[in-house]
């Protein structure tokens, strides 16, 4: 193994690792704020990437129907919940947010898909189609049971995952898709050819992580989320709505998932069910971080990406075995270091 190979593997590991890092951060964020281990996190990667690839190919992505359906269900539930206290602005708000907004997006997608739109437009449209699904799913599925135990929430999130996989097969078909890269350029970094897209992935990851850091440290919404994460009851006592925190956290998680999917779609083939395994590796990184620390989650994710690349080179048949076995010593170490405290 000479230095060229090492550099190759390092590059490969860093690209995969950055995506895992984004997902790990989303896992930690969601768990901290809502106590939900959101198994369907990875599915947003597949939805984002496949919606983007479909738009690029000029076909209407099936995911728009899920968006429209989720909006209508969420809006109807909202009407039912608020039926005794409906005021004019409230009705207008629900109509605009849950009916007009998703249906307009659906219409835009149907009109724009066959046109040859610029790369960035497709990217932005794919994002706006997939990201609102996050808050809708929270409002439909998790808000009514917000006080349930972690286990019940986990089971519900597994349910959401299966639903998204099943619908994904219906929307995108069984075959995989690969999107065209934003920049087709390749250049040599020493002996290693580097594709511009892989730099874009790492750059975007870095920018997002810095963005998260600033969001939590500098903005009111970010601080409110952090407060909910530290102590949900205390936060609601000082006037931070748990429902607001939940929606924001899901919005961010869906955004992270969808943007990851759009970024890696040109680098790999995505399938309707690819999200699970990608998400699982982000999940392992989140476990490394004990579902609490953001920097540890990022470090864990990068380590997993590199371990994966190196084991693919030396023992390709055992790649997944090696990657997932890494979790065992970490779990043992964590359980010795910090004895598990039963929650609730």
């Amino acid at each position, binding site marked *: 193994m000479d230095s060229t*190979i090492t550099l*190759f*593997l390092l590059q*490969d590991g860093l*690209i*995969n690792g950055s995506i895992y890092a984004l997902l790990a951060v989303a896992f930690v964020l969601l768990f901290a704020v809502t106590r939900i281990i959101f198994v369907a996190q990875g599915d947003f990667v597949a939805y984002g990437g496949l919606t983007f690839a479909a738009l690029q190919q000029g076909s209407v992505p099936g995911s728009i129907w899920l968006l429209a359906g989720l909006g209508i269900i969420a809006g109807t539930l909202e009407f039912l919940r608020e039926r005794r206290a409906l005021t004019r602005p409230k009705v207008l708000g629900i109509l605009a947010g849950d009916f007009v907004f998703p249906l307009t997006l659906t219409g835009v997608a149907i009109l724009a898909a066959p046109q040859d739109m610029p790369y960035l437009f497709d990217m932005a449209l794919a994002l706006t189609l997939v990201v609102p699904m996050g808050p809708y799913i929270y409002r439909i599925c998790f808000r009514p049971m917000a006080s349930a135990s972690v286990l019940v929430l986990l089971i519900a999130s597994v349910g959401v995952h299966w639903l998204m996989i*099943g619908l994904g*097969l*219906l929307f995108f078909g*069984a*075959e*995989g*898709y*690969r999107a065209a890269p934003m920049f087709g350029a390749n250049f040599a970094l020493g002996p290693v*050819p580097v594709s511009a897209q892989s730099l874009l992935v790492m750059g975007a990851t870095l920018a997002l992580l810095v963005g998260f850091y600033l969001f939590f440290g500098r903005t009111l919404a970010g601080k409110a989320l952090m407060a909910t994460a530290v102590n949900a009851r205390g936060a609601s006592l000082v006037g931070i709505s748990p429902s607001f925190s939940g929606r924001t956290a899901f919005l961010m998680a869906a955004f992270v998932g969808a943007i990851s999917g759009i970024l*890696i779609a040109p*680098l*790999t*083939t995505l*399938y309707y*069910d*690819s999200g699970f*395994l*990608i998400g699982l590796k982000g999940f392992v990184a989140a476990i490394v971080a004990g579902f609490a620390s953001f920097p540890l989650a990022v470090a864990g994710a990068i380590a997993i990406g590199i371990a*994966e*690349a*190196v*084991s*693919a*080179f*030396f023992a*390709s*048949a055992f*790649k*997944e075995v090696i990657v997932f076995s890494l979790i065992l010593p970490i779990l043992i170490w964590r359980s010795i270091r910090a004895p598990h405290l039963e929650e609730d």
Partner: protein
Amino acid sequence: MKRILALASVALATVASPALADITVCISLSATGPAASLGIPEQNAVPFLPTMAGDTKINYIIYDDATDPTAATRNARKCTEDDRADVIIGSSTAPTSASVASVAFEALTPVIALAPVSVKDDVNVWTFRAVQTNRMMASALVEHMVASNVKTLGFIGFADAFGDDWIAALEELLKDTGIKMDPVERFARSDTSVTGQALKIGLANPDAVMVVASGTPSALPPTALRERGYTGQIYMTHGSVSPTYIRVAGAAAEGSILPVGPVAVAEQLPDSHPSKAIAVDFATKYNAVHGEGSVSAFSGMMFDAGQLVAHASVEALKTAQPGTPEFRKALRDALENVRELVSVNGVYNTSPDDHYGHDERSRVLIQVKDGKFEYLPLN
């Protein structure tokens, strides 16, 4: 989806009104789940299956097993107990087919699997296959390797039973050719990167590389190899013969050579090929419904299974009535004594020792040229 619903309603209608003297063919396919890319074209071919065996009507009932062996077992029980199937076709993958075969054996019902499944000897008596063995497919590639003077062969394949079977077949076929297979790398269907494996193969720089994968994941290794500057010949398996492989791999697919059942290149077959006429006929009808170029070896397998059923039924009807154990036994015996049955994926000659019934007429080589599969004559 509309088609699945339509088929389901046809299936329901047939369940609702069983005519006693009709032949009941029960089909369990992996129309959803990981093997959906196999199960869907297979399911699409069902409307093209023969509806009459002599004067007797053939009814088809379709179930989806979601690529899940447990669901396949359940389907097979429904077939044998509720539907009183005379013969079962399915399933799409080896594990699900094994489930179907073992249930069918309990009920002494013949099975035509659409996957190269290995079962115990007593079960095998009732199990037939409308698919070429991996060894049959590999032999065509090895012939080409010998002819084009390949001395070293790299290997990258699925880390599953499909990959294992290809390694075994290749090791046996390569034994007397002087071709050395090294390095042998593996990857998983769900992998997002095979950079490590491609690097290792690139270092060894073999004359040719064998990529053993199926469906869209097959596009990953050629793409990674070409990105790393590998220029040798790339061989793929019949599992990769689908338009999505070319669509996803793009330029990296150019020049790769694949073995396939004749139906996939029906129009391009030489007139001397026995399957030419029937394959062109099926391909034309199928493409008219499902779009130009949509016919694949998988839809061809289902068509072949239908031909085998119709052919054997005519024999079995001479001695027994459909719906009886005697008819199922007669059907099994007929399936074991097929002589020169020409279908779209070759010519069938079965015997007690050979429940596949294929010979070298059941595979041809194709090469990707300008984004299309082109017939490649051996010799």
